[in-house]
């Protein structure tokens, strides 16, 4: 009896405490309950300007559209070192996002409605990352195809930096591959044209000089131009390009800093040749 009453007392206490606790409980929140969708699957903007998403976060077992194949290709290329697999993924993606077969389009002002994007674009915009990635992989093995892809990127966004440089460098590769002097000359001329187009996108103006103190920019473009002019025997142009390279590296150095000393050496050699009428 004594034991039973003691137990009853404890139960009564517990009940009362529970009532009080229940009064204190003001939410129905349960720790651990959150959104169930995969928020790592981003809402791609209509132009696919997002970059690479960590593949493990996407939860894609089988890619189903151009963007997903492109992401799988990036994973293969960057994380697995599987260039063949990446190339295949990019090509599959390209077949699903192609100007040639009408599965993508270049967006212009004509697509806008009252200055805004319509809710849907049919076909969808062409993806530039896909073309840059595939083109870069094809630079050595198929420079013509690579250049074609890069030029499509310029159609997608003519203001995008670095694309003309890629085109110029691919023409340089092409020039290095050919034994036909005429073809080589043409490739170099094309490269010069592309590299100058790259420079034109980042003009050195009175305003940029006032803001940065840089008398030149795009050091690597100038380096490439100097190499081409030297190969073509255009010593004055080569010396000038090296000079511009030095100006562009004055406040920025280079990833290969020894090139700065080399450029100075080359300018001296080229100027000596010029003095001798070469």
């Amino acid at each position, binding site marked *: 009896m*004594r034991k039973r*009453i003691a137990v009853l*007392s404890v139960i*009564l206490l517990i009940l*009362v*405490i529970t*009532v*009080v*606790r229940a009064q*204190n*409980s*003001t*939410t129905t*929140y349960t720790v651990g309950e*959150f*959104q169930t969708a995969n*928020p790592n699957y981003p*809402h791609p*903007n209509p*132009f696919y*300007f*997002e*970059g*690479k998403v*960590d593949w*493990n*976060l996407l939860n894609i077992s089988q890619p189903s559209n151009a963007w997903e194949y492109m992401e799988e290709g*990036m994973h293969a290329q*960057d*994380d697995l070192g599987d260039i063949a697999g*990446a190339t295949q993924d990019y090509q599959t993606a390209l077949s699903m996002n192609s100007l040639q077969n009408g599965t993508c389009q270049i*967006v*212009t002002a004509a697509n806008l409605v009252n200055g*805004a*994007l319509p809710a849907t674009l049919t076909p969808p915009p062409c993806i*530039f*990352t896909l073309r*840059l*990635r595939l083109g*870069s992989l094809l630079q050595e093995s198929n420079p013509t195809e690579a250049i074609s892809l890069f030029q499509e990127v310029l159609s*997608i966004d003519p*203001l*995008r*930096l*670095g694309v003309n440089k890629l085109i110029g460098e691919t023409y340089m590769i092409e020039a290095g591959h050919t034994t036909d002097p005429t073809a080589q000359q043409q490739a170099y001329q094309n490269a010069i044209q592309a590299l100058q187009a790259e420079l034109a996108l980042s*003009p050195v*103006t009175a*305003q940029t000089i006032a*803001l*940065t*103190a840089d008398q030149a920019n*795009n*050091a690597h473009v100038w380096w490439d131009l100097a190499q081409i002019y030297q190969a073509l025997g255009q010593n004055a142009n080569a010396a000038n390009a090296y000079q511009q390279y030095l100006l562009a590296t004055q*406040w*920025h*150095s280079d990833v*290969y*800093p*020894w090139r700065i*000393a080399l450029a100075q050496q080359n300018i001296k050699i080229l100027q000596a040749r010029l003095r001798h009428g070469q």
Partner: protein
Amino acid sequence: MSIVRRSLGIALWAAICILQLACATSQTPPVTGTATGNTTEGEFAAQPFERPEKCLPCHQRQYNELFAAVKSGYRNVSPLFNGLESAGNLINGGLLRPVYQDSTVVLPDGTLLNTNMLTSSPLTETRQVQAGFCFTCHNANVELLGDNPINREVPQLSGLQGNFDPATFRPLRDYMLVDANGNQVLPAVPGGEPPAGSLPSLGAAGITCDVCHDQAGPDLTRSFQEDGFANMSLLFNQSIEKVGPFLFPLGVKGNFHVASNDPNKIAFLKAGAFCNACHDVRVPNNNLMAEENNINPGGSSIKYFRLENLSSEWQLGLYNSTSNPFGKVIACQDCHMSDFPYAGTSNYAVGNMTITSPTPAIYATDYAAVPGVSTVDNAPLPLRQVVNHYFTGVDVPLLSLSELQARLGAGYPDPYASGTDAHGFPVGLANRRQDLLNAATRINLASTDSSAQIGQSFMVRLEAVALTGHRFPAGFSQERTAYVQLSVQDNNGFLIYQSGYVVDKPHPDDGVTAPNGNLDDEDLEHVHAIVDPGHYTTPYQTGTATNGGNNLVFQLGPDDGPDARVFEGASEGLVLFRNELIHIFLPGQPIGRTDANGHQIIAQTPHFEETFNAALANGVDNFRSLQPLQPRMYNYQVQLPTAQELTQLGVTLQGPLHVHAQVNFEHFPPVFMRYLAECTGPNGPAGQSLNLVDENLINTYLKNVKAISTADVTVNLVQ
């Protein structure tokens, strides 16, 4: 029988007492004159948000620790926080400042805007989200109190958008000063020095004891996905009920407060979910290209993008599971409020990497309050596992100690102090931050090519992983900067290749006409950017045309890595673990700079580039930061000079080659700080200096924290 009676009697007496206490507190009316929109029903005696000093007598250790935390105090007087908030307001005409319940602002659709981010539930208008957008997380308590004009610290601006007056605009911290009587005092001019004798206001204390210990759970209807993430979506008790971590707290002397015994509130305080309300930041923007929408009823017109995504990263990551090296959930508190990184080390494997790192989730044993003064009848306190309140993160104040003390109180601790506290932790924030950063990442170069040949290229393979509970860097991860500095030298020290380097240079845009000998205030060389700071005009107009924000200069640099790696798949250039805010320009829109002929460059097709102003971002890439516990490989194809080039240089390479890599961390990129300096400077849209950021501050306080993790490898040289 008497024992039985006595037992029953004691039980009944105890039950009656508890019921009386419960009923008494339930009958207490809510606080008069304070905002009620965010409060729960009054169950305990009302108590407005108190100054942290009120908690000091019984919680001395916690007070001291919190005082030194950047989220308490410093953040609210931070020149960066104030500068960023000011820059946003200068572009949009003051929309980021709070409105209150006496507001007469009418929105274009005729709706009265008299609630802010914290007092609108659910949020149905973008302008509600904008109203107090920054202030709400940094000063939620002060914003709630501000609905009563008597308690208001930060006033509602008299004019917004086209009626905004930049000449009278003040940074938030101007309002966080009081005199000895507690009355607000303002600097003589906007952004001016604190008046003599002024003291920090409640707002200056930032995240106070009450902000966390008054929590009453998540306000699910005020978070966009009904999940308690972002928008400071917390409910507050605003009563004497204080939520601590212990299920069976002792009674508090004098009934100054009641320690909550609500298991839900206690569990929430201890959960990572508690941090979600502020450590995800979702920015409303009606011009987004890839938006998410508020799913709450009536809120679908609110579109947003994810700025700070830290809580989501943790929520979805391995630390919020048992599938991590520690076999249990590791919550925010387990690293930022525990003995971490001072409680021993753990060894484990991540991918191919063998890791030794500090062990999280170990807590000191101590009293939760000061013994002998804090409990009813001075009941003895048990020793418990206790948290610290340092909340150490990646930040240290960018202010002098004298200015910190002028704005936050004479006792403000030196962030660079030496020595240890009673638990053996460094008392100086800078030391704790360094130790935390040292635990954040690991890198190795083990897969690098074993040999290299002159005139040929070889591959350096850098494997990197974050060990943090979120991505690294996190928080304002689009500006917080972590990167790899890598060099290849021959055995004589001849530098063959470098990445992640900086160069001392002039900054004529900020009045620096010659190199100043300091490398810590230099930007990385992947891109050269200068942001338009805007200029003062009258009448004021919103937008970028006069208030800046677009890139006046945007050029690729010689260490172009982030974009080349992401978009081209290049195996070269800077490895930058920094997310990116992007601005997509539609066809026909000017991109903010001119061509060689001085003509505005107009986008003919959609064009995007990095923006350094979140207010202008209409997209974001949050996948450039380093993922936790998922190693990632970064390749560098390094070209060796040819024999002819070496001859020309007069250099003979001597093997082996030495590859060194290290991860460095900096608060913010100098380009971003210089933008804020100019935008809030005398020539910016305010037309006067707000005295927040200047070149001297950048030069003095911006420090590059180097080598938070390192790796080395040697490569044989084939001649």
